[in-house]
């Protein structure tokens, strides 16, 4: 678009000449795009190419010179016939996918009713305040919020004190929970961290629905449930897709929550990558290969987002 528009202008102006046309079609837009383009190349494209490069050096460790190029790192992760193959890598990738998908589903199930109420039912004058209340937690560091969860979830923590208090009131002993350092804690932490994004995107999408359509549906005899399923949901599908993909992408790559709240059996791909670079195993080749797998998975999700998602809602949120 940016490149096309100057050339359209040519018709209404005196002829520009060769140099002028060159300036109009290339130099102007390039000057405008150069800062962000340079930024992207320096801090996104080059690092990614660097990771790709290292991922093709089998078993490269820092301080060693590469033995040569090959797919050894990938085959170690995915190829069961490789001598160096260990199934745990696939297991870790599977667990990360499980965390991401489960988080997304819970966020959708919890977030949709909230967003629906906010967008269509909440009193107009409270609406902005309520939306801000939802965004407010995002202003503190996710690290602090995750730490807070560890004191909520520990066996002697606030959650169990609360359960015991309820038990003492109703006179029925309720089972206390030992959730810290388990997958449950990771899922709670991820859901808590990413729910606001889901709600905001769904809210932005639901708010745009034309009320007249809902009224028309009711006028034509549809029950509220029919209106919801046949009018509201289909119109908010792009928002649902956008929210789900965004939550999926961010929770797939999250490092803080699984590290702080996860236990002896909740290794995720982001922690595994960390271990390859700064942890004990220090295998940059393998770490880069795992990073490429993560980048690829996330890129795929982003491609889906661009195709099916409601980009306006994300922008508004």
């Amino acid at each position, binding site marked *: 678009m940016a490149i096309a528009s100057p050339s359209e202008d040519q018709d209404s102006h005196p002829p520009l000449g060769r140099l002028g046309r060159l300036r109009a079609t290339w130099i102007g837009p390039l000057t405008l795009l150069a800062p962000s383009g340079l930024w992207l190349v*320096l*801090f996104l494209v*080059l*690092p990614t*190419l*660097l990771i790709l*490069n*290292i991922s093709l050096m089998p078993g*490269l460790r*820092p*301080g*060693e*010179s*590469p033995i040569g190029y090959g797919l050894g790192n990938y085959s170690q992760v995915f190829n069961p016939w490789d001598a160096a193959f*260990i199934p*745990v*890598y696939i*297991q*870790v990738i599977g667990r990360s996918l499980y965390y991401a998908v489960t988080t997304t589903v819970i966020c959708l199930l919890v977030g949709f009713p909230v967003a629906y109420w906010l967008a269509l039912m909440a009193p107009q004058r409270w609406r902005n305040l309520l939306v801000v209340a939802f965004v407010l937690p995002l202003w503190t560091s996710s*690290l602090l919020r995750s*730490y807070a969860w560890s*004191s909520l979830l*520990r*066996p*002697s*923590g606030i959650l169990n004190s609360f359960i015991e208090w309820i038990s003492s009131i109703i006179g029925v002993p309720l089972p206390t929970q*030992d959730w*810290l*350092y388990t997958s449950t804690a990771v899922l709670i932490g991820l859901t808590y961290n990413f729910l606001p994004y889901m709600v905001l995107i769904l809210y932005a999408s639901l708010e745009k629905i034309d009320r007249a359509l809902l009224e028309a549906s009711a006028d034509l005899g549809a029950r509220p449930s029919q209106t919801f399923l046949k009018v509201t949901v289909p119109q908010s599908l792009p928002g649902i897709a956008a929210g789900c993909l965004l939550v999926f992408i961010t929770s797939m790559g999250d490092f*803080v929550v699984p590290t*702080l709240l*996860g*236990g*002896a*059996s909740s*290794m995720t791909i982001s922690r*595994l990558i960390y*271990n390859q*670079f*700064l*942890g*004990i*195993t*220090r*295998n*940059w080749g393998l770490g880069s290969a795992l990073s490429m797998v993560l980048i690829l998975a996330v890129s795929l999700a982003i491609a889906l987002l661009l195709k099916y998602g409601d980009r306006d809602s994300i922008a508004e949120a």
Partner: protein
Amino acid sequence: MPRKPSLFSRPSRRFNPTRRRFLQGTAAAVAGGALSNCRGGISDVQSDDTAATTGGEGDAKTLHIYTWADYTNDELAAKFTDKTGIDVVVDIYDSNETMLAKMQAGGGDAYSLIYPSDYMVQQMIELGMLSELDPARLTGMENMLDKWQDPVYDPKNVHSVPFSWGTTGLLYNKDAVSGTPEDWDYLWDNQSDLARQMTLLEDVRETMGAVLKSLGYSYNSSDPDELKEAYERLVEIKPALAKFMSFGYEDALLGGDLSIVMAYSVDAISLTLEDDRMEYIVPASGSSVWTDTIVVPTSAPNVDAAYEWINFMLEPEVSTFAVESLSFATPNAKSFDMLSDELKNNEDLFPSEEVLAVCEGIAPLDKETSDLYDEYWTQITSA
């Protein structure tokens, strides 16, 4: 090899946050970009950007130190600044491997001093990353106890100055465990009672070593059969573990959520001094004994200031002050003599010779064995 304050909670402790400091950080980030030319060898990059991170005439007055948490504090740094006029900036790491990775990636070129542990000293010497120290410029090395005059990890202390030492063992809450833990076996014997109330260190060499020791093998075993046996023993106890963690267990232990944790003595001692319920033991079948040192990396700027700091830390009074305020064991005979009797007789801090006789130092492994350790570690922590 202590040190908890996690990379999250206190990524760095700076005495002098200045604008220069910020700019250096930025320069380091950009220098990271230099890695993109790394086709030939990643290790080559590190020396190139020293100028970028340390240029400028004011730098002779600033000393950058990269160390474990709790190995220095504001008071020590202030004393040093008073004495020499040199400002001190301290950054903190939480494992030898993290430090090595950062140094190798070229992110550590501003540091004049680092504090690696024994086996890491050996590894860094082999990688050619450490400068030889000039004995003529060091004062007080003769005060080191005999054991540290000629340590195996760095014969004759050519590259390193011993700074602190300690053991690895079990730290537990007396009120929460039944009986008295004496050996590593206690964990396996009581795994159903103490399920999810125990942790092991997130450290491949220490944890594998402890299991090897409990089986009667060496902490540094390189026998594949013994390693396999140790791995299987770890698999056996894994369901009872809350987590692998090297730091951050203090609150949970004091609050009763954890009952027994594997810990470095430095971390354990501060808890035992703080709370009577806390008890630390070096397991009977043996454990590791480690030394943390001060070294000057080859990339170090401002070497003069580095020597000033080392000599400052070698002064018996300063060393004694450090031991008393930070509770670690010193290899310095003179400063040991100056300690209070209470600390001198603290068996957790200075274990008896009989206890130390069954302990081993962690030694570097050949590549094949080290890969095997890593593979088992990945399996145990990822499954």
